[in-house]
């Protein structure tokens, strides 16, 4: 008999011949997230087990495992040999313990018999265990629809049975890395970390790109972005941040282009730099926190003109249809909100024009860009990149 944590995965279960490659990524991610904790990861059919952990680390493991994308739920279970008498005995012990801690009156027994060598059918065995429990605890009653607790008994193919009462939801999604690598434009605001989180949930490995404008923005603003990325690593795993100095480009736009087009041109150049970094690093998509209509640069016209600067790489905008409060809710859930609202300027506010164009055109944007030595500026910026590698285990207090 031993204590284990059962991990269940969702969508990848449906994958056909590719399933094992998805599973391998998921296992790697689970191990990576539990890196700092002493425990073992075992594989049984359709499930993973965390074993050999210290009682003290239990909450830490739950906290980390619930944040691994690809897992849908987990349960803290007791594992025994699949033998009728042992199951009966443990069921009673298990319920006894539950009743000590809770004021439960009604219950239900759910049996899953994946191990078909066990002779009694699921429903029959569930009824039997129910009876055993009723005989032992006179005050309890069976309630099939809304019971106070569910006693789950799962007989698995490995000859073991797992007894547990609770299922804890995990984040779901796809294992990070199963969809390749993406580049997140991380500004320091509320939206972009949420966008990164959502795309990581669909399996993208997250790299981040930040544009900073010293001396127009402070070192603290840059540190804030690193802190945001660090908070994201809890979900996304290791993150590589590309820091690009942007003041010279902003100054040149300011000097040479129409004030109304300042932000449009800035965004187009950011996209070009992002695409170059993607090409150089085999990243497959650019992720932004744009939400339709939120600001002047996020109207459908602006998005069109800004996307037009790209050649091939797609822009993924997971929060495009989200209201601000919906984004804020996710930001709070993933613990990035409090960092995002720290009042440092980002590189956009430093050169904020009074009246940015709301419906820019590609023709005008291209005309404005002709006043700049575009390639030279972009190459120079990329050459001055500073790369910061953040690792998950750096989060340990």
């Amino acid at each position, binding site marked *: 008999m031993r204590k284990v944590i059962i991990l269940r995965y969702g969508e990848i279960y449906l994958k056909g011949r590719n399933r094992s490659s998805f599973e391998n990524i998921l296992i790697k991610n689970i191990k990576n997230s539990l890196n700092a904790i002493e425990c073992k990861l075992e594989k049984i059919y359709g499930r993973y087990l965390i074993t050999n952990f210290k009682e003290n680390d239990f909450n830490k493991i739950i906290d980390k495992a619930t944040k691994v994308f690809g897992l849908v739920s987990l349960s803290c279970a007791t594992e025994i040999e699949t033998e009728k008498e042992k199951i009966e005995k443990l069921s009673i012990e298990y319920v006894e313990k539950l009743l000590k801690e809770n004021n439960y009156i009604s219950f239900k027994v759910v049996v899953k018999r994946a191990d078909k060598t066990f002779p009694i059918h699921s429903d029959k065995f569930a009824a039997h265990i129910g009876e055993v429990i009723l005989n032992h605890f006179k005050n309890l009653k069976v309630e099939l629809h809304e019971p106070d607790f569910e006693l789950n008994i799962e007989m698995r193919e490995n000859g073991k049975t797992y007894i547990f009462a609770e299922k804890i939801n995990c984040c779901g999604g796809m294992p990070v890395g199963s969809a390749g690598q993406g580049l997140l434009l991380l500004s320091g605001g509320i939206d972009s970390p949420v966008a990164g989180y959502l795309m990581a949930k669909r399996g993208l490995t997250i790299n981040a790109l930040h544009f900073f404008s*010293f*001396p*127009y923005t*402070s*070192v603290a603003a840059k540190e804030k972005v690193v802190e945001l990325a660090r908070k994201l690593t809890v979900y996304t795993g290791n993150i590589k941040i590309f820091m690009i100095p942007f003041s010279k480009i902003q*100054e040149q736009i*300011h*000097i*040479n*282009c*129409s004030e109304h087009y300042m932000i449009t041109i800035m965004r187009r150049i950011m996209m070009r730099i992002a695409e170059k970094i993607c090409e150089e690093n085999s990243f497959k998509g650019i992720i932004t926190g744009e939400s339709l209509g939120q600001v002047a640069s996020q109207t459908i016209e602006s998005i069109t003109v800004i996307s037009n600067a790209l050649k091939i790489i797609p822009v993924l905008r997971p929060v495009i249809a989200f209201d601000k409060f919906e984004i804020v809710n996710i930001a709070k859930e993933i613990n990035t909100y409090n960092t995002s609202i720290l*009042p*440092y*300027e980002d590189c956009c*506010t*430093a050169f904020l024009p009074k009246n940015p164009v709301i419906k820019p055109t590609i023709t005008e944007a291209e005309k*404005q860009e002709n*006043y700049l030595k575009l390639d030279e500026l972009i190459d120079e910026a990329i050459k001055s990149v500073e790369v910061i590698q953040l690792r998950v285990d750096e989060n340990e207090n």
Partner: protein
Amino acid sequence: MIFFDNASTTKLSESAVDNLLKFSIEKFYNPSSVYLAGIENFKQIESVKKLICEKLNLKFDNNIIFTGSATEASNLAINGSFKKSFKKLLFSKGEHASVYSTAQNLQANGAEVDFINLQKNGEIDYIDLEKKLNPDVNFISIIHISNESGAINDLKKICLLKEKACPKALLHIDGVQAFGKIKTDFSNLNLDFYTISAHKIHGPKGLGILYVKNPDRLKPQIFGGGQEYSLRSGTENIASIMAFKTVLEEIGNSEQIENQFKNVLKLKQTFISRIKELIEKDIPISFIENENSSPYIISLSIPGLKGETLLRLCDSKGLLIGTGSACSSKKSGNRIFEAMVQPKKIIEGNIRISFSKYTTYDEIEQGSKILANCINELYFKLNHKNKSR
């Protein structure tokens, strides 16, 4: 690295280190202890208090209280004096946050608090003060030298107006930017409280001083072992107090202070004329000063630049300066400059350069060059526009 932010803090006087060590390692005894070594330390503290009184030209009469900071000293003066029966308290709009926030707190708790306007040069508006003074006023707090603009308030004038309108009102002066830098002869002024900070004049951090005319009427804000005449409990910071003694000795007499005032004034004038020479002709620059402001502080603005940006650029070139106005995107503006009715561009573009008695002409030369270069560079980038487009 050139440090021109001496209004925020100063480097510890090197000769003060001896005492700091000696009274930390060798004579570390608790001044409240009964054995001789403790009593000796207690006496030492008294000698420092006497020295402070000498600098203020006031008689020592158990009227100097050491605190953990000047903020704490001002808080003690205000909150320790406050009574529910107070009808009105007056504060200048140019007070440092340690006084201003305390005033706001009293106001939020129902006290009748009013604020005195400032003139454009940063001094208080004496006409407004006269208007607001009446027999109902119980407490007045005014800063001696503004930490933002460097303006020196005329304490003589303030005392005269006060004596005429409400002789019984308590008067607190925040002398953090003044003590040790300008003459502080208060023998003919009827001050009730004067706040001093050690680290603004090359003393150690973590040491504030409050002069109190009538300690009997003050209520403690921190309770405990009864140190500092039971007005501020907590073991005396003997090492810092003794380090501050060295600083006080170095300040010298009022004649020496006046000489130093003149020396620093020359430094200031040199700096200002160098800046005017070195910046491009078409760059607007405005100095917030009059003949009556502190030589230790220069407040200047370049309309069209942001003070914070300029500060960061100077930082990267090895010049440390200050900005009072935190113009982050969320919180723009500055309470004190707004009270001086300065235009938004002046407020946003403001920086503060502050000297110490150790500032050299070499630093003035180098510092003015760095600052002027940074101003020229930024101003060109932000205000140049290719007009044909």
